[in-house]
């Protein structure tokens, strides 16, 4: 699941994870993402989450998802331009598993997914 209020960023992220054989569901903010999660039959393996979004921001989304046992299997990766040390600490404390700072190259996403064990090493060309 790709959650970002920027269509351009959703497209960039979609391109990267589609290339890694993930099926992608998009949402424009945290609230929309919660709604999509309710509708989906299977819990997504991975959510890439922007921080600054209207209605429900990424940190609030992470907190909400972590409070719900059904979503325990979902890996939460913040992908955001928030780059202060304290912000990363806050997001990890709220339950995010990983954190990528924008701007990022596709390799950065791939590296983190390898380290999280979501894709095998060398799966990407």
């Amino acid at each position, binding site marked *: 699941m790709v959650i970002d209020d920027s269509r*351009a960023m959703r497209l960039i992220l979609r391109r990267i994870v589609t290339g890694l054989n993930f099926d992608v569901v998009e949402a424009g903010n945290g609230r929309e993402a919660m709604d999509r999660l309710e509708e989906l039959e299977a819990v997504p393996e991975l959510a890439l989450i922007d921080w600054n979004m209207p209605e429900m921001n990424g940190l609030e989304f992470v907190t909400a998802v972590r409070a719900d046992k059904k979503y325990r299997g979902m890996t939460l990766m913040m992908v955001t331009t928030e780059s202060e040390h304290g912000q990363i600490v806050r997001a990890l404390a709220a339950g995010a598993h990983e954190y990528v700072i924008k*701007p990022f190259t596709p390799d950065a996403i791939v590296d983190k997914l390898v380290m999280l064990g979501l894709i095998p090493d060398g799966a990407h060309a």
Partner: protein
Amino acid sequence: MAPTGDDLQQIAEQVWASYLDTDGAKPLIPLPPDKLSKDVVAGVAVSGAWHGLVLVACSDVASKEAAAALLGMESDDVTEGDVDDALGELANVIGGNVKSLLPEPCTLGLPEVHNNADGDPWLAGDEICRFEATWMGEPMEVSVLEKPQGGGTE
């Protein structure tokens, strides 16, 4: 601690390497452009311990090329909406990185894109740093404007 032109250059170069010049074929050249033009200005407001705007300004042609590169399309097919999305996101990413150089705590607003910025009241403020570059032969500029405390940063 305040951001400098060198900081803006470093941030802009990383943004270009990540999104607009991924194969090194379209480098952002750190030389002032021959002609200045601010056909399109995208900005994000920063508010909190510091108030102001982080701006990306460029020519019409450069804005279409940027949208094409970011969205993976042909520049001829780029619509005004594409330009708004793309430039807005560039301003957002650059703005977030600039914010980390400003006093804490600050929050980032959502991006706005304005055309033809001459005399635009949105752009009133004191410029504290600027990075001018040439991209694909077109002018590209990143700057930071400080606004008087509480003065209309939305």
